[in-house]
């Protein structure tokens, strides 16, 4: 196997004395879509924050393209082209859709801004219709699209998505996940996805990890996880479809 794009080695993250992650090992290869599923409070978002440097791991290492990023500040990690659509979308509410996209392109000093905006509008035509609108006036689904598009404006090597389906209608979730699939197919974008919606996430991804109480309890190709009776019982049946 080649060197993974992102490698989380034995990461342990604490909030004060409370351990939120215990010995987490995760690998993301170039061009893959990898998902992490788990219940509320399993530590999924903590892992996201640990990767981004917002809540650095106390022990263990995070390696991106061979660089140790465990204790780098968030903005420097972002400059290595790890883009993130954070939990709760965190778009700039009072700025317009285009201004939000412009902020996403600030790493390259807007060098590819015009070209990339058009790409985003092709990917999410709804954003084109709404380009002059204040982002805060968009619907939840449109805000999620904007959040992803803003992250993509940085031309990332790795896209981190934290619960993109949160609070959205099934049809919108389908649209957004379809867009991610297209991006992955056409531009070989690497995606690491954290989701509670296990069914949709496993359908989309190549490989998956299951997290329970801050530990990775299961991992494997998404097809196998989908078929796994334990996973089905815990995350799929009686839940999302």
């Amino acid at each position, binding site marked *: 196997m080649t060197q993974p794009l992102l490698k989380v080695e034995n990461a342990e993250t604490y909030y004060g004395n409370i351990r939120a992650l215990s010995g987490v090992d995760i690998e993301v290869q170039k061009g893959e879509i990898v998902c992490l599923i788990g219940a509320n409070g399993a530590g999924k978002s903590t892992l996201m924050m640990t990767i*981004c440097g*917002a809540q650095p791991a106390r022990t263990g290492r995070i390696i991106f393209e061979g660089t140790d990023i465990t204790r780098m*500040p*968030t*903005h*420097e990690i*972002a*400059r290595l082209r790890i*883009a*993130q659509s*954070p939990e709760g979308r*965190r*778009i*700039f*509410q*009072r*700025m*317009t859709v*285009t*201004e939000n*996209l*412009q*902020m*996403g392109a*600030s*790493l390259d*000093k*807007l060098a590819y801004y*015009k070209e990339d*905006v058009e790409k985003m509008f092709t990917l999410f035509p709804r954003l084109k219709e709404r*380009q*002059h*609108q*204040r982002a*805060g*006036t968009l619907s939840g689904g449109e805000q999620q699209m904007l959040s992803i598009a*803003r*992250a993509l404006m*940085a031309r990332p090597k790795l896209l981190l998505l934290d619960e993109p389906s949160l609070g959205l209608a099934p049809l919108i979730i389908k649209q957004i996940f379809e867009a991610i699939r297209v991006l992955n197919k056409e531009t070989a974008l690497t995606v690491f996805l954290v989701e509670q919606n296990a069914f949709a996430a496993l359908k989309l991804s190549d490989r998956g990890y299951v997290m329970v109480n801050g530990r990775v309890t299961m991992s494997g190709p998404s097809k196998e996880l989908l078929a796994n009776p334990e996973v089905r019982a815990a995350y799929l049946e009686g839940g999302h479809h």
Partner: protein
Amino acid sequence: MTVQSTNPASKQESLVARGLREAFFAGLISLGMFSLYVGLKTDQNMLNELVLVPRWGMLAIFVVLAMIGRFLMIVAVQPWLAARKSARASAAHGQAEVPGFVARNLTVLAVIALVLFPPLVVGLFGMQGSLKWIDNFGIQILIYVMLAWGLNIVVGLAGLLDLGYVAFYAVGAYSYALLSSYFGLSFWLLLPISGILAAFWGMVLGFPVLRLRGDYLAVVTLAFGEIIRLVLINWVEVTKGTFGISGIAKASIFGIWSFDVSAPNNFAKAFDLPMSSAYYKIFLFYVILALCALTAYVSVRLRSMPIGRAWEALREDEIACRSLGINTVTTKLTAFATGAMFGGFAGAFFGARQGFVSPESFVFLESAVILAIVVLGGMGSLVGIAIAAVVMVGGTELLRELTFLKAVFGPDFTPELYRMLIFGLAMVIVMVLKPRGFVGSRQPTAFLHERKAVSGSFTKEGHG
């Protein structure tokens, strides 16, 4: 409003009748309320006894004012508000209204009007008569416009609530006062130095408050403002404490002409003009006008530059900023430093204008007034802030002019004393009617094809 009949004539009539009726009740209520408060006054007579002095005339004035106010409210203000509301509703359906000539060329017209202001006033009131208008109104208002525009960078753009802005004003003023009296340096050299020193102190304030936001930030900046003032009071050897520094050198016209009466290159002497202090004020008016223009230009330019956009993004969401690779530390520090720098410029100018600085001029109230101007004007809007400064500062000066009120309320009535009461009331009214300030819309800076204003009506009130 109550049910309205369809016939406009009868509606008008019923409005007046209703107005009269409500005015009558308002009169009754105010009579009941004020007869003891206003109608009777306790006083001491020659024998040191407490006696009641009736003031029926005053009581009548209060009651009549209440009645007139109520009548106008019913007959004029409420229908006007209703008409405006329906007009706005219908405008929302049709296409957006095209801004008029004045609205489109507001900046150019305002600059022309301001440049022509001193000659116009001199022409109208004569040299000596123009002093009041140029100094008390013109310069005073422009100083606050500049301060508020400077604070707007910190509060309006970067969203960092700063309650100690007057500290930088003080740093600028004392930098000029001290360096000019101890080292005899000129205004034009010290103006940039004062700005740089203030910017430096902006950074000094910025470091400890990097992790703070909102209320916590406000408290720390408030304390910072007080610390600077207390240092100025207590560092007597350098600052002369509460006595302040007097006899600060005047600014000159780039060292070519001076405004010192004794100087050989005195402006009036050089041009064989009659001696007058008005030249200096007119000169200062243009200096502060230029400084304001610089502040506005820099604010507008910065907004469309990466750092300005980063400030605005920072105001919206700090975490998202970091995840986009923006260094929030330097972004915040530059906001503090830039805002402080303009405060420093304004301070140096203040020193040159007054010729005297003391810690008295830099109390918390000043910070509060500047912040109030920014909030009233609509955070982020230069035009709105300028209007608010005219209203707040010009209003104060106008109060001094209302001498006719002495005829109504007695000779010991001083209208300026009611300034805070009136402004408190005015601010409450403005915030009820226009919660986002005079100009609540924000002009976007990123465009693909065309410009479109973004209405502020979707803005969450009280945010940012």
